[in-house]
């Protein structure tokens, strides 16, 4: 991920020169063995990453239904996409999902991390909070699909016990996306809290001691010290969350399948349906290219805006 910018090349990055041998000789002697060492990874990189990337971009300029050969049609897929109401709907739905996800996940996780940092540093608690993140999306989705069921789900039983009308969580157009977002907030809450917690642990104690000696209130300390020093971690969390949420698929696939009507047809679902439902691989590839460009832009803007690769701790 973009997190890597956090780790600038250290001194160890440039291997110290052994005085015993001239450098060039060592380099070339190492080259042969190095090639052997990276050969398998290289095969994977070229065959399943680089070539598919090029092929994906190429396919986006073609019409291809798996029958016969891809046929070059220039930018027609792209012009069609921009006039495609279902595409704009998919974007709107996805962005709505991303927004709900980001706000709730970040706020809840930050709160939990601060509380853990202050009163409960036990590994057991952190482990328990991490539990939902370790089971598959599919499992989490089915579990909540049952708990939020209109007729028998425990949540609706509780709602009706309180004398309120039952809610069709997955079955109504206005509730479906917030529900799916909530399910994913539940799954990632602990994981995100642990990431932020790790960032809090890295803030040196003496910074807080100085602040309390200066008589800074806890609120003041939080806004003037904790948040600025957490910035790289928060930037990382935001980038990971946004990029992850843009690619939501599993939860939608096993619960609503994109419905009701088009209420949960997120962009990845749309790509999947175009490619495997309608065998329109060219169009689906063009959609993927657009998604890729959006994600790259989002990551770039976030890193620039949050200066996520710089820290005030140095």
């Amino acid at each position, binding site marked *: 991920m973009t997190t*890597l910018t956090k780790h600038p090349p250290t001194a160890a990055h440039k291997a110290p020169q052994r005085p015993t041998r001239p450098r060039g000789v060592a380099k070339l002697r190492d080259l042969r063995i190095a090639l052997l060492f990276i050969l398998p990874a290289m095969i994977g990189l070229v065959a399943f990453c680089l070539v598919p990337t090029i092929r994906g971009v190429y396919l986006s300029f073609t019409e291809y239904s798996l029958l016969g050969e891809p046929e070059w049609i220039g930018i027609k897929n792209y012009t069609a996409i921009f006039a495609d109401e279902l595409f704009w709907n998919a974007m709107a739905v996805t962005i709505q999902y991303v927004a709900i996800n980001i706000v709730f996940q970040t706020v809840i996780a930050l709160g939990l991390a601060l509380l853990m940092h202050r009163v409960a540093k036990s590994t057991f608690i952190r482990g328990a909070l991490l539990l939902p993140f370790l089971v598959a999306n599919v499992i989490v989705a089915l579990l909540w699909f049952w708990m939020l069921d209109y007729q028998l789900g425990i949540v609706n039983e509780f709602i009706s016990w309180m004398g309120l009308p039952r809610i069709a969580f997955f079955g109504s157009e206005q509730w479906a996306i917030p529900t799916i977002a909530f399910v994913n907030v539940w799954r990632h809450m602990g994981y995100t809290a642990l990431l932020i917690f790790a960032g809090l642990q890295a803030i040196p104690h003496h910074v807080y001691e100085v602040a309390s000696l200066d008589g800074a209130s806890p609120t003041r300390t939080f806004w003037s010290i904790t948040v600025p020093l957490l910035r790289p971690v928060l930037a990382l969390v935001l980038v990971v969350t946004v990029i992850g949420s843009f690619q939501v698929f599993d939860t939608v696939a096993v619960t609503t399948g994109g419905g009701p009507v088009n209420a949960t047809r997120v962009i990845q679902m749309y790509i999947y349906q175009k490619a495997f439902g309608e065998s329109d691989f060219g169009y689906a590839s063009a959609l993927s290219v657009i998604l890729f460009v959006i994600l790259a832009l989002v990551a770039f803007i976030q890193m620039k805006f949050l200066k996520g690769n710089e820290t005030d701790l140095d």
Partner: protein
Amino acid sequence: MTTQTLTTRKPLNWHRIGAWAIIAIALAVTILPFLWMLRTALSSNHSLASNSTNLLPADFSWGAFKRVFGMQTTDEAIAEGGSGAAIDFWLYLRNSILFSTVTTAAQVFFSALAAYAFARLRWPGRDKVFSVFLATMMIPGIFTALPNFLLIKNLGLLNTFAGLTLPFLFMSAFGIFFLRQFFLSMSREVEEAAMLDGAKHLRIFFQIVLPNAAAPLATLALLTFIGQWNEYFWPLLVGNDENVRVLTVGLSVFKSQSPQGAPDWSGLMAATIVAAVPILILFLAFGKKVVNSIGFSGIK
């Protein structure tokens, strides 16, 4: 701020009580759904409707698990509210274990080889090649999934274990990055000594580097295994056939076979438990490793 709350133990510190209360609520919200999963799986499906709120299973029965493992006749299954369609989670469990173990072992091993070359060997273009590997972390999964599907299809490997595992076998950019960080921090002395003895790189790697890196290798293997076990999108594309179907895909099939209107909830929850238990066992055994590795960097 933190030091004060930790050292001054006032008899009644409302802040601490409030903090603990919120943590307790968060724990309850996290754990209770799993208990509900178990409670549902151990209920008999027809009794769920009449008894939907009691914490204990409604009309305790192993029937749901029997259905999931294909141990009921079609008539029995239908009588208990199942779909009666043939479903065999033993097979999916085996496939998941095979898929996750093979991809994890190969991926971690090859990533370790590459990480060593990036951390310990000096060769022209090393850092440029490494940045290319890192850059691939930015590529969204769906983007390569379509062309990779076509590749596997053209190779005639749809619905085979080869097709299912190939894209994961050779490396993961995260794994290479993770292990490279560790190799960079390893002391060079033992290696240098072995060098002077004229030992070859390969021998040093297998006899010195790998044993010394046991802890990070285990952590990476654990994280990779969990990720592979939960993988859904790729197996959905290339492994829908019974013989190679993994648990995540099996679950979605089981759900879609459910009779409309009256789903087999207890069967479905029993199936999710079967799919989750191996991960829970791993987590109980090695939880500390996983918990402490979070924060090293974003893992998605």
